[in-house]
């Protein structure tokens, strides 16, 4: 099983020229806070408007201005969207990193660089395209902060020329970006055109990389996981959303704040059917969620690792007092403050066992923007049905980057409010808050405001009996905790089942979750092309549903692939299937970057070598 070279084989096109079409990556190196995001998104959008599958990943620093940022654009005719280890096209516009950036450029690649960069290494194995930035800038007449913005438009023009990006599509991209404010669009297009023209005249294209129109993105939307999650929550019926800003979760609540007024103002009264509260911290944010859940609201918050740590005490309360609530954790790299602008999957244990004493929480793992949208409904339904906090673990890569996707269908999953008794039902059947009438571990609850005098009870984090009365009796404690375990078992059947793709006579199995799916799918295709057959189970939730066992039983080796150091999901799988523990092989790695297919292939190959 050989690993393919990172650079796709160049083909020879009709004109007899060696060419690589729609299958390469671009990396744009700039400093943040200069507006380069606008330029990068314009390139991304223009390519996708040309019908070509494309994906953008922003590798940005944890500050506001002036530190290195890399924007990776993967153009892939086959629709692969995972990160690639190398980019063939480098736009070296950041003097602080240019030397290293150029060193990292693979042989055969091209480097578009501002010609005032000093001390660049000599490389004869790549094509160098210098851009006389200062002169071109002078031509624009830009002053002050415009200099930065126009700098970025200049590389757009040059890239467009060199890669054959359609100027019309660039115009369209900017038009979308600037929300039809034509003046802005025109000003920027002017610079782009100027640079384009300059490049046309002055740069001789001598490399194989270019794009060519396809028809693969028609009708697709471009959206981040956080926007999708925010929209999903709105269509899932969120009524109370509380939060405290933290990267990379902030844009999820931003999306909610943006869309709510347009989607959820009551038409009759013109009033809000929702409340969004910026809390003073995460302790307050989760406290509000549980308070709101208690009175019946579909309540949520969004945060990241440090916020989860701070919420631990409240999550334990939510688990034990059986309060619904949804917590989106857009994972970044921990422990501690860690790398706030890098991606990972390190909060699996923190979420699943969040709380002291014996707690186990329901956790969902969306793997793409579709699932982010979908789980907006699913998470609330589970939280209300199971009367417990539900985590949704996304990550920075999925959450903050833009993904091409089919538009979202209207949710099929109905809004389910769980076992809530009305006053009439209390009158009819009586009410014992924690009685396990249905044998599924889930009691019936009443909401404050219920007029029946027997509906009132006291919610608490202290020991209680079936009737919700304070109790220190051993039997009450035991029964209650056993019922909570039963409830978790009920959850196994309710949570979304894993997505399975099995190949007959597969050499081994792979289990993973979340956004690593893109790298895994690509790696599987490439392995298959080399004759290695694999089966893939993508977990969508904890607790594990029972089909996980069946899957593992089928394979001698099941690789558990995840973006963390300790193999956290691997641990959980082992403890739930001790008899199969030795089949489960951990493939865990965390360096802050999204997983690549190449890394995964290499690692699987090594491990398979060891196993052989």
């Amino acid at each position: 099983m050989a690993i393919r070279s990172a650079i796709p084989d160049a083909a020879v096109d009709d004109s007899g020229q060696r060419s690589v079409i729609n299958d390469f990556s671009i990396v744009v190196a700039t400093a943040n806070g200069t507006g380069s995001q606008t330029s990068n998104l314009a390139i991304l959008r223009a390519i996708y408007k040309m019908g070509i599958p494309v994906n953008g990943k922003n590798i940005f620093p944890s500050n506001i201005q002036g530190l290195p940022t890399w924007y990776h654009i993967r153009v892939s005719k086959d629709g692969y969207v995972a990160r690639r280890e190398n980019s063939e096209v480098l736009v070296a516009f950041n003097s602080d990193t240019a030397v290293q950036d150029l060193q990292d450029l693979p042989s055969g690649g091209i480097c578009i660089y501002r010609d005032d960069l000093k001390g660049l290494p000599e490389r004869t194995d790549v094509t160098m395209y210098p851009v006389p930035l200062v002169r071109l800038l002078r031509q624009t007449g830009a002053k002050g902060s415009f200099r930065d913005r126009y700098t970025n438009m200049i590389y757009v023009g040059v890239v467009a020329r060199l890669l054959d990006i359609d100027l019309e599509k660039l115009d369209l991209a900017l038009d979308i970006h600037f929300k039809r404010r034509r003046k802005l669009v025109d000003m920027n297009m002017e610079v782009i055109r100027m640079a384009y023209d300059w490049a046309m005249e002055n740069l001789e294209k001598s490399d194989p990389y270019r794009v060519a129109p396809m028809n693969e993105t028609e009708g697709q939307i471009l959206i981040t996981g956080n926007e999708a999650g925010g929209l999903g929550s709105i269509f899932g019926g969120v009524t109370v959303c509380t939060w405290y800003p933290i990267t990379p979760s902030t844009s999820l609540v931003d999306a909610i704040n943006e869309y709510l007024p347009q989607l959820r103002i009551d038409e009759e009264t013109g009033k809000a059917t929702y409340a969004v509260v910026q809390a003073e911290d995460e302790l307050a944010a989760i406290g509000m969620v549980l308070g709101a859940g208690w009175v019946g609201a579909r309540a949520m918050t969004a945060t990241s690792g440090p916020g989860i740590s701070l919420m631990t005490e409240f999550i334990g309360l939510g688990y034990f007092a059986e309060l619904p609530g949804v917590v989106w954790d857009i994972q970044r790299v921990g422990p501690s403050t860690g790398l706030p602008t890098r991606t990972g999957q390190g909060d699996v244990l923190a979420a699943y066992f969040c709380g002291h004493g014996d707690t186990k929480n329901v956790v969902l793992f969306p793997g793409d923007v579709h699932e982010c949208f979908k789980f907006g409904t699913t998470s609330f339904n589970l939280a209300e049905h199971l009367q417990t906090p539900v985590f949704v673990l996304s990550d920075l890569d999925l959450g903050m980057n833009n993904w091409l996707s089919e538009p979202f269908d209207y949710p099929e999953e109905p809004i389910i409010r769980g076992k809530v008794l009305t006053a009439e039902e209390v009158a009819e059947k009586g009410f014992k808050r924690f009685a396990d009438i249905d044998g599924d571990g889930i009691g019936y609850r009443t909401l404050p405001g219920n007029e029946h005098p027997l509906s009132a009870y006291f919610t608490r984090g202290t020991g209680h009996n079936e009737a919700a009365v304070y109790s220190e009796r051993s039997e009450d404690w035991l029964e209650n905790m056993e019922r909570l375990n039963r409830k978790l078992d009920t959850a196994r059947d309710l949570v979304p089942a894993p997505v399975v793709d099995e190949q007959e006579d597969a050499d081994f199995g792979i289990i993973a979750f979340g956004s690593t799916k893109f790298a895994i799918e690509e790696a599987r295709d490439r392995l298959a092309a080399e004759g290695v057959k694999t089966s893939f189970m993508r977990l969508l939730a904890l607790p594990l549903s029972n089909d996980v066992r069946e899957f593992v039983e089928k394979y001698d080796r099941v690789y558990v692939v995840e973006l963390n150091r300790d193999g956290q999901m691997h641990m959980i799988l082992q403890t739930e299937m001790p008899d199969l523990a030795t089949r489960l092989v951990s493939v865990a790695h965390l360096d802050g970057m999204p997983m690549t297919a190449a890394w995964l292939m290499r690692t699987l190959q090594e491990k398979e070598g060891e196993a052989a």
Partner: protein
Amino acid sequence: MTSRRQRTNSLGLTKADYNARPTTLCQGCGHNSISSQIINVAFELGIEQHKMIKLSGIGCSSKSPAYFLGGTHGFNALHGRMPSVATGALMGNHQLQAIGVSGDGDSGSIGMGQFKHVMRRNLRLVYIVENNGVYGLTKGQFSATADMGQFLKYAGLNELPPIDLCMEAIVAGCGFVARSFSGDAKQVRELLKAALSYEGTALLDIISPCVTFNNDESSTKSYPYGRLHEVQLHDISFVPKLDEIEIDDYQPGTMKEVEMHDGSQILLRKLEEDYDPTDRMGALHRLQWAQEKQEFITGLIYYDNSRQALSKVMNMIDEPLGTLPNEKIRPSKEKLDQVMENLI
């Protein structure tokens, strides 16, 4: 037994209907008196229990919601975190009237941040601090409201200055700030009634002696001290909006009337000549002065109803959010398609 007709209120309920489980606090604990006054007030005002919620943190004080208004949903939250839970509950259902009960440790120590921020937000919440200057439930450590220089058998000498929760509330933007004494049943009642009519967060800082750990007369939070030293700023009475107001012995300049949002009135018969509870600076001043002189002033210390309750500020629909029908909380397919259209 002879069956004496029991007094009933406007709803035809007896006072016993407002009881809950028997207290498990110490005999004589100030917190129990406050619970009794809550029961009295609810009975007298004819409150419908299901229209209320009661919340608390952790501590002896925070247990007390289990001992009043058994017909009201209650939430015993985490130590210091009642304010956030109350905020969430009142966002989820802003029709509910909320009573939050906390302790001086619960609000002044671990809960300081949430205390300040709930005051800023101004939800419709009667926030009662049952203030005994000590951690009752953990057996006698100093809380942040204990006086500097106080000595306790268990905890030794307190060398830190006290936090004055009334001052804290005013500084944080609270518009109804009162101090009282659990031994002064009438005042507690009238303040409670007024607070329940207030359309925002109302702080009642009630000195409520801990008979087990902090009831020596040398403590400003003790019964003996309170009984001897309480200085009422005014004699307060609350007149619900429906009542005919009848003021006997009206003497000009001795009475201040405060009109509330819902039409009720607070009548203050001045005891301290020029105290004006609607003057923010004056209120801070008076508190500061009292702190320096270790004076135990009680009454309505500050009143302002210029701020709107948060649910209004947020332009929330009249019905409780928590129980809106599914049609109101899931937008239509057309709307989704529109959104998708814009993302293409």
